[in-house]
């Protein structure tokens, strides 16, 4: 997440990969912890460090947001429902298979 560009090329409203004050490996290290961060499983000092990193790295901030949105979408994805006929037919098939054994 750390491509190099000059600061004058930055557009404030878009994620940008330049302007880093941290080492290149920091972004990958952060990426390893993102699910634990989203699930609120990290110690407070690690969370503070991640938030500090995000402040210096717009791309990581956007990336975390996109991962949070992904998890939110998964949590709210509805599943199709069975019909009464499906339930009845499956019950019959299960009992038939059980009795055949």
């Amino acid at each position, binding site marked *: *997440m750390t*491509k190099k560009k000059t600061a004058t090329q930055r557009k404030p409203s878009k*994620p940008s*990969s330049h302007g880093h004050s941290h080492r290149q490996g920091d*972004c*990958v290290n952060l*990426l*390893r912890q*993102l*699910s*634990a961060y989203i699930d609120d499983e990290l110690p407070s000092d690690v969370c503070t460090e991640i938030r500090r990193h995000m402040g210096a790295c717009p*791309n990581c901030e*956007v*990336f975390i*947001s*996109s*991962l949070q*949105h*992904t*998890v*939110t*979408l*998964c*949590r*709210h*994805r*509805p*599943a*199709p*429902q*069975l019909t009464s006929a*499906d*339930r009845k037919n*499956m*019950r019959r*098939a*299960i*009992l038939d*298979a*059980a009795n055949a*054994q």
Partner: protein
Amino acid sequence: MRAIAPHTPPRKPARQTPEEFDKLYRDHVDLIYRYAYRLCGDTESAKDLVQETFLNAYQGLKDFRGEARVSTWLYTIASRACIRMRRKRKGQPEHELSIEEFVPTSEGEFRLQIPMDGLSPEEALQNKELRKALDQAIEKLPQKYRMALVLRDMEGFSAKEVGTIMGLNERAVKSRLHRARLFVRRELSARGITHHDGYKPGSMHS
């Protein structure tokens, strides 16, 4: 349909009475179908998995020792049945996902190109294209990662409970879950979904 319950005595299975089975089936069939559909991605395979699960439950309930909730026990049977059914269909091993493959390499890979701003998740998911993209991303996951994602993020189990169902320790569950989430995020990021069908801009902001 093949009997597969690992808890079942090999010669003469101890079976439930039809009344016990009916209660178990009535109370849990919708739950297990929802899980099966999320694992399989299509209705017919999901119904096969539900039948396999309850057939095994029918034959094995008397061996159920009550150490877990009945629903957790059924999820465990369904998960094992799903793995066996996949092995019967496909022989090749699943590939492992590494963290490094999810590091974005270009500017466009950091964000989701989908309409979510100002929308609740339910509203955003009324977009058919988004639902399809999400379903396809989950379906593309190797099974062991998909199972962790479905159980944790869609069925709402804790990491510890997912570990019980999948026979893994919590650390392994979290590792699989993280890779699964990164995989789905990357798939969604690669899809530019700009059209929001059924809604006019501004009409759905709360």
